[in-house]
């Protein structure tokens, strides 16, 4: 089954400045949770440089946006 939207941030693909709560809590794994529902991504993202959900260029911070040749992206 495919993910609706991926919460995974891949080094070399996504901007190094993207942040989400999961990066800041010391959460242990719970693999059995996918027995009870399918994967989903409810994550709120922000930029560490602006400390908001918009990057330095004013565009939203999301994995699908914070990659590639976006000018403010840092790899």
């Amino acid at each position, binding site marked *: 089954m495919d993910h*609706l939207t991926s919460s995974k941030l891949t080094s070399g693909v996504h901007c190094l400045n993207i942040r989400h709560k999961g990066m*800041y*809590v010391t959460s242990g794994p719970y693999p059995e*949770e996918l027995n009870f*529902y399918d994967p*989903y991504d409810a994550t*709120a993202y922000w930029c*560490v440089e602006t*400390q908001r959900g918009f990057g330095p260029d004013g565009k939203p911070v999301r994995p699908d946006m914070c990659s590639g040749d976006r000018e403010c992206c840092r790899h």
Partner: protein
Amino acid sequence: MTWGWRVAKYTWPEKPTLLSTRVLRLDGPDKVAGRARYTYDINRPGMIYGRIVRSPYPHARVTSIDLAAAQTAPGVKAVVAYRNPGDEVHYQGDPVAAVAADTEERARDAARLVRVRWEPLPHVSIEAQAMDAAAPKWSTTQENTRPGVRQETGNLETGFNDAAHVVEQTYSTHVITHVCLETHGTVCEWDGDKLTAWVSTQGVHQCAQGFAQALGIPQANVRVITQYMGGGFGSKFAPDSQGIICAKLAKLANAPVKLMLDRKEEHLDTGNRPSAFAHIRAGVSAEGKLTAFDGRSWGTGGAGAGSNFPLPYLYQFPNRKRVHTDVYINAGQQRAMRAPGHPQGCFLTEILMDELADRVKIDPVEFRIRNAPPIAPNAQWIKYFQEGARRFGWEKRHPTGDPTPGPIKTGMGVSAHLWGGAGRGSTAHVDINPDGSVVVKCGTQDLGTGTRTIVTIVAAETLGVPMNAITTEIGDTQYPFSGGSGGSTTAASVSPAIRVTCTDALNQLFAKVAPTVGVQPDDLVAEGGRIRGATDASKSVAWKDACKLLGTEPISVDGKWQDGLSGAGTSGVQFSEVTVDIETGIVRIKRILAMQDCGLIVDRLTAESQVYGGVIAAINFALYEDRLLDRVTGQMVNPNMEFYLLAGMSDVPQIDVVLNDMPERGVIGIGEPPTVSTASAIANAVRNATGATIRSLPLHPHKVLAAIEQQRAGGTN
């Protein structure tokens, strides 16, 4: 006390003296007496006050910013532009500039003198509006929707062929804001190139990283302090724009700056729970087994942010398909909010479950038991449905629609939930001093949940001394690293770290004491303020006398979380009984029963408090809270605590909490799960009372009346 490390190095005691008992919060007296100092209470010498200038428009372009008048206003010490001409703002409350002045009043006055010229742009404020192909765009560069990937399991056609009954309806939940009692805010003070920040945050170490990276300074130069904070619910993990603005104002003014947001800013720009909609077609067999689920969902996380949630939730649909679409509107962005996604997915699924149960004429509890995952340590739903039904008096529940004459109808509802709650990664430090005093340090923070208390419980339990012998130091980046307090991970991260560190320190003390007591270190135990032989209690020494043997050198130990002391996966079921006045549409909750597990309970009192808090928050979600945007102006019409409704004391019902002790699973977090299923249990009780299905939160009186009217016209089931 049994020292399990003889078998496995670190375990919890088999016969604890403090763990799992009801221990009062250590900071309760300080909070009640007003001695507890929250960020808002921090006042530094020479401190001035910051104020942010925000966009009044839901969507606009900044054409110019003139700071001159503000800069020369009385008492003003610093003014900064946060945006540049040409920048686009995407919601009411988007920050644009900031000022700092010697009083809060002068800061407000100066903020009004910042002259921003705007080019208003078309906006969208509700989901349906945004999804219209002809709608204005929320951004000049972005689309209003982002379709997700199709998820499919099994064979939907087969599933519907196996169905004896099919329900097809649209369900929804609304946007609510976090409404932290203590608003977001910061006090920043520079000493040369070193920053000290008192922040209302869920993560002191994480906040320090944010300051360092956003300001371009070494993290070693940042100290963040949070001794007390008034709730975050997922919205306080970073310095945020107001934190960075505060630090910049303080640098510019060369003075400490306090910048606390007001309630309106809190509603507009510090996060919210996204809305959730789903059009669902679901099938059930004649035997009451779920066969098929076909869902198309959408929701908004505001300006450019996602809105996904788990769907279907918990119950086993063997054949299912779902596609989710994120919808963007001109409103503040979502942030993690107490069990992100779960309350939405739970509500949408659980209302459907009652409708399906009625179709096959099976009691809702029995129907859920037939379709719940099998019992496992992390999946106790079937047990809770059965035991909860007995405790709640479910046998007194009438079929859908209270036949009692008169306008006041009574009904019962049920719902279930789950959460992970696993921890890892925390570190701690303990000093056992020669005078017998003990200092435990951990860079975690207490959001109001009782972390300070549980740290002390674990230390006292491990060292066998009274809790008042322990000095617990938390809420400061000068203490060892601990994770942010979110995802219900704190208790499961911190408790093992304290247990491990204190065990190591005690073992060092045992080694010192053993020759004096005449017992091998491995045969010593600590309990009741003494160290004694495990098999010969006559060989003992008082804790203070034992510590005197340290001479001039304290025992000083660093430790960290280790596997085996915590677990993952909690389950819970909630029952609700309500009355509904079918003439006014007013719902009153009579009682709620919460069946919940969280592994090893550290403090029964604070664990129960987590459940109370979660249930009350969900009552607000179900009956009161609603972020209302005016579709014409794009303005939030209730950015306050007058028209943004919350339950008062008289709205809170009897809440019975049943915690299932599972010490063998280790510590598991409980902050999030109890808030997940309450709203759907209430809505199902309203359905049982009135016979009308309300598929959309909140259950405001006008919606209840509309559903009853529709039901009378033969429409809702």
